[in-house]
């Protein structure tokens, strides 16, 4: 009576696997263009590492933003939070000579603190997350500029001997180009992947993950099922801040300095990665895998266009067009959707 209209098991599995593969078509498209036009120059490890490394801190923001989007909110403050975290990292290093492993948790606490305020504002004060995080963007950017006196703070601190201090030397491993862990692994890329894996597991394997989807998919149902909607909401904003804090040192190391403008407009890239990856701003729909793919599409697209020496102006045009094409191609219902007949 129920499942008998569905296609038989084998076919169904094939279709659903295809549906999943479908999500990667946009990425495949970008990769194909890269390989076709630049071959080995595009596909070699260094280039891919460089390309992903340049986006890694934004990619990490995108993971946090995905959590928030899944609950039906939005977080515009992540760029500012990354900025203040990168400033914190550079100052801890230059003024207080802290060890890198001390710096990261401090930055994460800073990010989480402001993220928590975002969550508190959206729940307890019931401010729409768009306004709350836009206000936070402004407040945090102001604080960042105030503490730094608007001057960028370098991370290549030299001791009296003219050599980098041991802390500054170690800090480079967070992402200064050319500095790899164990001589091989570029930390920003590793960090981005690890963050994706961890949050993928959290979302798919834990109670908290289910609750995140429930809050976004149907907050009333979630509440009536005993989900603490307020706590979940505060938690996702806090995690988003925490991840922005985690990304701060990476950004500082990448530029070997913390700029008072660092992270400006990163929030748009982060949200775009999530949404291109299939997250719905209405909440309840999206995956970390999708966000990861979305981030790759964005950064590899930049890379491919750059390698092909497309002019800056046309890059903007082509990038917009390809994003549209990628999003359309990776619709799960692509094959059926022109046939119409479905409910709007």
């Amino acid at each position, binding site marked *: 009576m129920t499942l008998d209209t569905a296609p038989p098991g084998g076919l169904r599995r094939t279709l659903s696997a295809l549906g999943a593969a479908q999500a990667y078509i946009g990425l495949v498209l970008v990769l194909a263009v890269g390989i076709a036009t630049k071959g080995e120059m595009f596909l070699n490890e260094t*280039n891919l590492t460089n390309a992903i490394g*340049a986006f890694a801190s934004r990619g990490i923001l995108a993971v946090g933003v995905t959590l928030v989007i899944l609950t039906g909110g939005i977080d515009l403050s992540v760029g500012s939070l990354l900025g203040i975290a990168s400033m914190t990292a550079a100052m801890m290093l230059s003024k207080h000579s802290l060890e890198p492993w001390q710096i990261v948790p401090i930055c994460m606490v800073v990010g989480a603190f402001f993220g928590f305020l975002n969550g508190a504002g959206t729940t307890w004060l019931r401010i729409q997350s768009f306004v709350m995080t836009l206000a936070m963007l402004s407040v945090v950017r102001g604080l960042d500029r105030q503490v730094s006196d608007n*001057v*960028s703070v370098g991370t290549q601190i030299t001791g009296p001997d003219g050599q980098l201090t041991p802390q500054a030397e170690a800090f480079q491993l967070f992402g200064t*180009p*050319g500095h790899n862990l164990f001589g091989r692994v570029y930390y920003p890329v590793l960090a981005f992947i690890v963050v994706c894996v961890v949050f993928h597991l959290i979302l798919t394997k834990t109670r908290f993950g289910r609750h995140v989807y429930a809050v976004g998919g149907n907050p009333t149902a979630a509440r009536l099922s005993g989900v603490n909607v307020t706590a979940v909401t505060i938690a996702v904003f806090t995690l988003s801040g925490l991840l922005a804090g985690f990304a701060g040192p990476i950004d500082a190391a990448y530029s070997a300095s913390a*700029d*008072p403008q660092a992270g400006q407009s990163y929030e748009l890239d982060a949200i775009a990665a999530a949404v291109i990856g299939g997250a719905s701003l209405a909440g309840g729909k999206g995956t970390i895998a999708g966000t990861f793919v979305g981030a790759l599409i964005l950064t590899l697209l930049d890379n491919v266009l*750059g390698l092909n*020496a497309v002019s800056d102006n046309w890059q903007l045009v082509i990038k917009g067009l390809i994003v549209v094409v990628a999003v359309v191609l990776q619709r799960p219902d692509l094959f059926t959707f022109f046939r119409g007949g479905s409910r709007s």
Partner: protein
Amino acid sequence: PAPATSAESGGEKKTFVVGYSQSNNAEPYRAQLNLQLQHFMKQYQDIELLPIADARQSSATQVSQVQNFITQKVDALIVSPTEPAPLTAAVQQACDAKIPVIILDRTVNTDCYTAFIGGDNVLIGRKAGEEAVKLLPDGGNIVELRGILSNQPQIDRDKGFREAIAANPKIKIIADREAKWLKEQATPIMQQWLAQHPDIDLVYGHNDPMALGAYLAAKAAGKAEQIRFLGIDGLAIPDGGIRAVQLGQLSATFIYPTGAKEAAETVNKILHGQQVEKEQVLGTTQVTKDNAADLYKQFDLSGQN
């Protein structure tokens, strides 16, 4: 009402109020300018510089800031325009309100101002080009990192540079892209260039952060030694171009003068009814390993204030 019976008799001592609208504080160059201006203005006891207004790169914001200063009836106004045209009408309004205006760094399209003080970006570009010619006697390949394409300093720095390198036809600009004055944008662009062009000899960055962003990429690729880097700005801050020259990261940079000292002097003269020169075009100083330490000391304001 009874006249004030304060200690200083005669009410002769008037304090002048000066407003300054900066186009974007968050650029290190401009932060330095602010710092210097505050420093030099303090030298004049009877002049009070209001908190600097930051337009955050928005012309509309800057126009209303200028209008606010007019409303506040400041005695003199300093403006570093984001762009020439947008500020023109606002400066005209100040002029109509009989407020003396000093234009710092970028121009406006009216001559209804009291003084213009600024660097000569074509000249700076030309100096950079001449240095490139010197560094590449046998010719070579240059890549150019540009500021925001529509910004006048970008246009001028490109123009002067190209004029100068024409001296040696074997020098070629093989690639140029907009890195928006930002270090972080320059690094991945340089990484791509390194993949495309194995034979880059020199990087010309329209400011030091971009040149240094490219340096990071080249260093990572093990090519920092065979490539020369030129920047512009030469700020005396720990993270600035002078230090980078000292460290051998940049072959040279060119001081883009802030004009803060000149601005303070000019304001003082205007307020006390003295004559000032209307166009004050400032030269540049090339920062090399030899003069870097001295220049740093000369411009370093961190100990003061």
